[in-house]
């Protein structure tokens, strides 16, 4: 099951999720996840808006921005959105279960 964020706003239930199609649409519109550190003020609301494409494609950008401005705990929200954004790619890149053969194991000290 894909990662999702759910909330209720103005009496309506919203489910945020990224599909491959929504990421494709976002990238076609100029979104680049690498800009998240250089241009956070524009990238983060765009990332949030992109999460609406999968289930609420026709919600107006003004409403999305309004919701975004009212959401609490943005730091964690954006971290979750970034995780969700990466999930469609991770699901493709996943290693096979068995690490036999030529796999190189690694570990970090932090």
């Amino acid at each position, binding site marked *: 099951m894909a990662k999702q964020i759910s909330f209720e706003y103005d009496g309506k239930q919203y489910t945020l999720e990224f599909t*491959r199609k929504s*990421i494709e649409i976002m990238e076609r519109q100029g979104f680049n996840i690498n800009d998240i550190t250089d241009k956070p003020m524009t990238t983060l609301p765009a990332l949030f808006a992109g999460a609406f494409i999968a289930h609420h494609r026709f919600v107006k950008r003004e409403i999305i921005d309004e919701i975004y401005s009212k959401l609490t705990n943005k730091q964690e929200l954006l971290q979750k959105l970034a995780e969700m954004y990466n999930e469609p790619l991770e*699901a493709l890149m996943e290693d096979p279960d068995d690490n036999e053969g030529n796999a190189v194991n690694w570990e970090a000290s932090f």
Partner: protein
Amino acid sequence: MGSEFLNPASQISYTEIFYEHFPFYLAIGMTADEYWNGDCTLTRYYKKAFEIKKEQKNEELWLQGAYIYDALCAVSPVLHAFAPRGTKPHPYLDKPYSLTKEKARNDEEAKHKANRQKAKAIFEAWAATLDLPSKKGGKDNADNRRSPNRNNS
């Protein structure tokens, strides 16, 4: 200088990677709608299912090879160019291999039971050919064997 350390992967967009993998998932039975608009984790399960299918196919081919090998072994006596006149092939397996442990155990038990029945039938047939004394006579004979000189003393 140092450009050789730039990660070319960072220049590739997610969309490009999605399109790169798209044909593979189409080939293993995922629909375009599932791939693009469905739950993104579905690809994991399609891939695992594909691995299982590959494994099954491999086992089927191996099994087919085993049956062909058995068939060749069975007919090998008549394939011999200088086989004596009247040589017959061995019979082919009377039933398929047991693929599960339970089936193998049941088959083994059935085989043992059949062997026991066969041995019993052979023994009974052999026993019927013997000229055994009757029960009474048998008892008398046994008494005689135990004390052969009783009457004499």
